[in-house]
């Protein structure tokens, strides 16, 4: 069954509010909900939330034999599934469009844009490599699941520590965390994903000339997500490198409406996010060090 | 390394190829569109998004839309103008029904008190139980038992000829068969052609001299069948339920069968060459085929088809 779309009064209310640059939760159009990150006791376990949207990401690693065609590279797998737990809109067993988008974009951002240095995951060429498994678990969907999942995923990768391994000849020794300090993964860069929801200004009498105005909002809430007529997903890192830009259909935009969103808005937002994540990681690390000292 | 080169086959006349260097080629998109006069509209071709005229002076019809006070085309076809109304007629599209049109359709579903009929339109047409003639006289009242026996009249897969009666609010058409000319079809075969090739004629029931009846549905479905004598067909009083809703074909002799196939093939050929179908064209084509003494199965060969079309269309001009 198709989920019932939002009622007409709700829609009208939202549209009129948006026309005056107001959003129902009081944010300004290009303002994100403040993300929150909670780290678990283990490395590589993160709970990330954007408002009421919550996602858990966890990374674990094990040693496997690499496939013969890539003997020098580690393996990364990403598991993401939207269960009916996140929202009643999702069904078991049937892959929804949202799930396809989520899986594919996560794959592009976290795997294909070379976040993790795969060659550093090689232990013994052709014999042993690390296989990292990133599991993304969506707990609640209150809009913009993708950004939240992506943030959780990248922070989990940054947070993860793998045990140190020593290779002598063909002998592989794994050192426990109590013996030697576990090592962080070597990451090339940290991309963040931003989702813009697009709303066309209703083509009334005002749009007699020039291109119709498009209202753009960042980080849509669930209602906004369901009413939007198009999305722009941008993933980039703090070094101003784009990893994914995806505007798959939806309302057509002029190039001059599109590029500023990426060039200006996304760049600043990603810097802010990057700084935020770094500071939270530092705090967490500080907390852990104290624990170690006490024990 | 092995290198492959492909030699794409020249498939037909529309095939064409070109290479361009974007920055060096100037924009020639609007080349011949600017000051075209609407009065020469007969041959004016459009593509989606083409500018037709200003919306202040004209009204937009089918196949157009208005943006920024300009009337733009939304389909590829020819511009037609009636007074202030500008429409674009798509060159190839599904059937667009109008009230009073004669259509040939196929039952796809039996629903409570209605049948769904595929009539090559954008939605299935509806044939209400109350819009068909039931056995036992034209004026007979509908009974509840009729609802239970709907499959005795028409069942899934049956072909019928009907007239467009009205439209529902969502644009689906409602059909009726309340005439002795309409009803279930048998004794023949169906040919499907683009609807634009069926012109509105005085009568869409043609009787060809070769003992073949034709029903030209405006939806592009054409029924080619054995000729039934008028005396057997008509008769207000002796409305024969058995005959009207019968699923049994009559005996058809070999000559008639060949004639039916020949006519069907001729229709397919003409449609393949995009020649509009009229009784005169069909007759000429049929005579030409007999003159040339072409076997039925040879008709569908390409060279024969080409020769036929040149012969027939040439005669026309």
């Amino acid at each position, binding site marked *: 069954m198709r989920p019932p779309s939002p009622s007409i009064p709700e829609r009208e209310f939202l549209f009129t509010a948006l026309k005056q640059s107001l959003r129902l939760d009081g944010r300004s159009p290009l303002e994100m909900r403040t993300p929150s990150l909670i780290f678990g006791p283990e490395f590589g376990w993160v709970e990330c939330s954007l408002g009421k949207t919550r996602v858990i990401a966890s990374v674990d690693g094990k040693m496997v034999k690499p496939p013969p065609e890539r003997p020098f590279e580690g393996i990364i797998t990403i598991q993401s599934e939207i269960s009916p737990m996140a929202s009643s809109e999702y069904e078991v067993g049937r892959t929804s469009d949202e799930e396809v988008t989520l*899986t594919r974009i996560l794959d592009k951002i976290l795997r294909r844009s070379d976040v993790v240095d795969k060659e550093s995951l090689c232990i013994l060429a052709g014999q042993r490599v690390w296989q990292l498994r990133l599991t993304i678990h969506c707990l609640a969907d209150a809009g913009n699941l993708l950004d939240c999942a992506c943030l959780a995923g990248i922070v989990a990768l940054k947070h993860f520590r793998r045990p140190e391994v020593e290779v002598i000849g063909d002998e592989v020794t794994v050192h426990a965390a109590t013996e030697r300090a576990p090592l962080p993964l070597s990451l090339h860069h940290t991309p963040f994903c931003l989702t813009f929801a697009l709303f066309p200004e209703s083509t009334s009498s005002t749009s007699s000339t020039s291109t119709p105005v498009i209202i753009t909002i960042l980080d849509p809430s669930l209602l906004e997500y369901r009413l939007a007529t198009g999305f722009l997903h941008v993933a980039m890192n703090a070094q101003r490198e784009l990893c994914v830009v995806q505007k798959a259909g939806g309302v057509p935009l002029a190039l001059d409406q599109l590029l500023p969103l*990426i060039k200006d808005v996304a760049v600043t937002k990603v810097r802010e996010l990057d700084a935020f994540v770094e500071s939270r990681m530092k705090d967490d690390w500080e907390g852990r060090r104290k624990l170690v000292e006490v024990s | 390394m092995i290198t*492959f080169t492909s030699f794409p086959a020249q498939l037909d006349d529309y095939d064409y190829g070109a290479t361009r260097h974007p920055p060096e080629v100037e924009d020639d998109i609007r080349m011949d569109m600017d000051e075209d006069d609407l009065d020469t509209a007969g041959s004016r071709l459009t*593509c989606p998004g083409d500018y037709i005229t200003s919306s202040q002076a004209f009204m937009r019809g089918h196949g157009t839309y208005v943006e920024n006070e300009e009337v733009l085309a939304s389909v*590829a076809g020819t511009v037609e103008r009636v007074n202030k109304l500008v429409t674009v007629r*798509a060159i190839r599209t599904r059937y667009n029904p109008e009230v009073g049109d004669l259509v040939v359709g196929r039952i796809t579903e039996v629903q409570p008190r209605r049948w769904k009929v595929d009539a090559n339109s954008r939605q299935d047409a509806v044939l209400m139980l109350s819009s068909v003639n039931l056995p036992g006289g034209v004026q007979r009242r509908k009974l509840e038992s009729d609802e239970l026996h709907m499959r005795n009249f028409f069942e899934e897969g049956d072909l019928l000829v009907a007239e467009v009666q009205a439209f529902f609010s969502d644009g*689906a058409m409602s059909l009726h068969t309340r005439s002795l000319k309409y009803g279930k079809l048998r004794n023949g075969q169906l040919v499907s052609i683009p609807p634009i090739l069926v012109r509105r004629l005085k009568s869409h029931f043609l009787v060809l001299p070769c003992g073949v009846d034709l029903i030209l549905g405006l939806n592009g479905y054409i029924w080619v069948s054995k000729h039934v004598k008028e005396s057997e067909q008509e008769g207000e009083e002796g409305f024969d339920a058995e005959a009207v809703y019968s699923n049994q074909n009559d005996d058809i002799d070999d000559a008639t069968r060949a004639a039916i196939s020949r006519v069907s093939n001729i229709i397919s050929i003409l449609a393949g060459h995009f020649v509009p179908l*009229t009784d005169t064209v069909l007759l000429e084509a049929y005579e030409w085929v007999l003159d040339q003494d072409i076997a039925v199965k040879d008709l569908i060969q390409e060279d024969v088809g080409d020769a036929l079309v040149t012969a027939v269309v040439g005669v026309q001009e």
Partner: protein
Amino acid sequence: MASRIEILNEGGYRSDGRRQYELRSITIDLTPQGTADGSALITHGLTQVLVSVFGPREAKMRRETLHDRANVNVEVGVAPFSTGERRRRGRGDKRILEFASTIKSTFEPVIQTTLYPRSQIDIYIQILQQDGSVLPACINGTTLALITAGVPLLDFICCISGGVHSTHPLLDLTTLEENDVPSVSVGVMPKTGRVVLVSLETRLHVDRFEEVCRVAWEAGKVLHGEMRKAVRERTGGLVDAMGGVAGAGGAGRGGPGEGDGDERMVDY
């Protein structure tokens, strides 16, 4: 992975001998395939895609009908022999599903779906050969197939891929180039110049991105000229075929002559 192939040599030529901004040759074939309402076979160099459009027609799945507009259904098939290494992709492959959903949402705002409530428009895409720019080929093919099926569109969508080799933008990438340089696909509506589709899947600096976007956007308009020419040729051809009989003689025959014909036939 660094490759030994020179993407752009010092003379300014690419590995297949094209210039930086040169597109591969395009062929368009709009002959109807089978019972489809409209179909298009488009090739960009060695990439070949066949698109067939059915509809608007009665929706097969009742629960998918929309009461106020037509439902657009896209299905993509990839021929196992379309790539160098023969490989079969199932229907559930996420990459293909994403492909289909991208094409669906690209065309939904451009097709005038509100004219056909409760109907369904089926778009079936078969990828026959892949040599880069597969998504653009699919989009362009779908545009043409929809036009030949007489489905009302607001405008063409012309899509082209672009890439950047160090700082030089390239257009219309082959597989070889796609593996080596970041690629961007841009789908343009040429009338308004607005962009429906932008898709980048590899790392690229923002400034480079802007540059290649603008070049691809320009190229989209050139492509429009080509596609438009093909459509006009076909429309013209069909109109001529009909005109040969109907346009010239139609008016004269519509009247009494036809009646005579009828009577004569009945006499037999």
